[in-house]
């Protein structure tokens, strides 16, 4: 008889498939995981504590560094919360610019996810394709605000920079290009037998579990729950545009994969309409007092980031700095289901399931 023994294995913190500095301690029985304990905090910078000593404008760069793959939506959630608290109206052109960069960011973020996910699973070339096309978006952002990753683009009351001449045209041209490439990606990967064998039916959960665990984004919608904040609690200008909220049926990694793909298509659809309706001229900053002194009160603003619901809770005591600022980070909340999903799975599936949740560790730790 073969003697078996429990094995304790540290995955991470320095492991490429953990997408950052993140560690999981797994107990293995042969190849099968019997227990998993995520360990985080390696990237904890105390953003919420730091924010208590900064004024609202100074906090914006910190949001860039939370989910550094999707800095634009992070910028937005903070300024949106402050605007809600101070009841500031922002000019239409600024709103359009915000929406356009957020949707571009969603495409870019999903591309990063797609590339790295396939890299985790063992396909090298999609990663290169994804980063090639993401580069176009990054360059667009670079033209707009002079940064490639940490944009610090939005301000309370509007946006910092207006679109340079011809910028909107470039966005317009990007849309058909990206649509074309999506077809290429689908042909290349989505029907691949080996790929399907790796992700179909893996990491499966039902709608009740997803809701109980507070999952959001594609992680929630893959179970058939239609909850997209852009649709259900519209912010910015989302109620002006037509788009669908794709939902899955099986709640497995394959559904999440297809959903993110479909979300890119829907983002392109929104972008197309936004570029068409983009106001020819107008202000990019609304009337805001020089010192942003939010009135006493509490406000919570949640928006749909590429990873799910990112939220910002502000408790203000009437000062120019928040009394308490809390970010609801989708990566952090979505990751909670991981130990549950891993039990009974093999080590290879650990990578598939973790990648399928789509986390950014900067956001998990905040």
């Amino acid at each position, binding site marked *: 008889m073969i003697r078996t023994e429990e094995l304790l294995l540290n995955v991470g913190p320095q492991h490429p498939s953990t997408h950052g500095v993140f560690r999981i301690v797994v107990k293995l029985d042969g190849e099968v995981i019997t227990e998993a304990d995520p360990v*985080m*905090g390696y990237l*904890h910078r*105390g953003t*919420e*504590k730091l924010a208590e000593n900064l004024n609202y404008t100074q906090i914006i760069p910190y949001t860039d560094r939370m989910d550094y793959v999707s800095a634009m939506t992070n910028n937005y959630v903070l300024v949106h919360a402050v605007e*809600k*608290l*101070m*009841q*500031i109206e922002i000019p239409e052109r600024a709103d359009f610019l915000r929406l356009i960069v957020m949707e571009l960011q969603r495409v870019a973020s999903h591309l990063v996810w797609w590339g790295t996910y396939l890299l985790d699973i063992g396909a090298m070339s999609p990663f290169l394709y994804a980063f090639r096309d993401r580069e176009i978006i990054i360059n667009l952002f670079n033209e707009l605000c002079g940064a490639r990753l940490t944009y610090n683009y939005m301000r309370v*009351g509007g946006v910092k920079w207006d679109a340079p001449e011809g910028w909107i045209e470039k966005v317009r041209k990007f849309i058909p290009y990206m649509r074309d490439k999506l077809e290429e990606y689908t042909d290349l990967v989505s029907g691949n037998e080996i790929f399907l064998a790796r992700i179909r039916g893996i990491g499966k959960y039902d709608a009740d579990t997803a*809701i*109980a*665990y*507070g*999952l959001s984004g594609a992680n929630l919608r893959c179970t058939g*729950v239609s*909850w997209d904040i852009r649709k*259900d*609690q519209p912010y910015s200008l989302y109620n002006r545009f037509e788009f669908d909220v794709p939902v899955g049926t099986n709640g497995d990694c394959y559904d999440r994969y297809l959903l993110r793909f479909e979300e890119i298509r829907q983002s392109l659809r929104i972008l197309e309409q936004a570029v068409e309706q983009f106001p020819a001229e107008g202000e990019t900053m*609304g*009337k*805001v*007092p020089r*010192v942003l*002194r939010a*009135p*006493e*009160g*509490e*406000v*919570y603003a*949640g928006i749909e980031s590429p990873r799910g*619901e990112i*939220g910002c*809770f502000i*408790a203000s005591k009437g000062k120019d700095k928040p*009394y*308490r600022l*809390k970010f*609801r980070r989708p990566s*952090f*909340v979505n*990751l*909670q289901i991981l130990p549950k999903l891993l039990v009974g799975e093999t080590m290879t599936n650990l990578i598939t399931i973790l990648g399928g949740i789509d986390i950014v560790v900067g956001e998990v*730790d*905040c």
Partner: protein
Amino acid sequence: MSDEQKKETAPPSSDRESDAVKKEAEAPAPSGQAAGSAEAEPTTPNEGQSSPEAEKPAPKARPVKADKEEPPKAPAGESAGTGEAAGPAAEGQAAEKEPAAAPAAKAAPTDAEKEAKAKAAAEARAARASARAKKPDAEEDAGPKEPSPNQPRLDRLVQILKHELGEEAVAEAFINERDAHMPYVIVNSGKWFEAAELLRDHEELRLNYLRNVTGIDQETHMEVVYHLLSLHTKQEYCVKVKTDRDAASIPSVTPVWPTANWNEREIYDLLGIDFPGHPDLRRIMMSDDWVGHPLRKDYEPLDPEV
């Protein structure tokens, strides 16, 4: 919040009346006024004038100044002072108004004008007195709360909680107007676990989705804020639970909403609130041997070098 309420409850008609009177008093200096405030239509001066007045948060202060008979400068100064608090719109208007008021003050001192002004002031006083007489019942009419669209939902929530868990379950209930009229309810921590189960399972509420959990150190006490959503009805509520600062403890709701698990661990780690009933309460962000809870307002790092 209170500023806004005052603004709204002040009867706008009486404001406009007294403005009209003041306008009469300032009439001898029309050129300065018109040049200064480009926005004010000459045919309908009342409207142009009344909007900055309406922005003013404290209508009570007005009678005092008018009695001293220096109306032109004082309102401008005041609205400039309060502009920042009242928001961006008021600030802009105050800035526009100032140049208008200054020339009026310079042109004032002839006798006829003074007389006219005194007369106007008297009239204004009378108008204001009658306005004041009207005010109390106007306030009552509007009610202390603007009838919020979510008030019925809040009342129903409180009714359900009190009916199922007893009167003492709900400590306070109010509408947070700033947060899109979110119904807020403060639940007593002793009843919180039962209340959480009720909120999730009750036929009408079915708050199955816990959006966000925040811990706040209010210096006098600790509180935890839960943002709840029903994915069936798409309705939202906010629940607060307060606890003592020194022995901070709130029942864990992880058995009710598993998503609370890491959120509670984070709050325990950063704010030092205990959650009895939590399956695995230990630090999550800071290292296990960390001393203190960093998000507490009186936190001093053990080793400032770190």
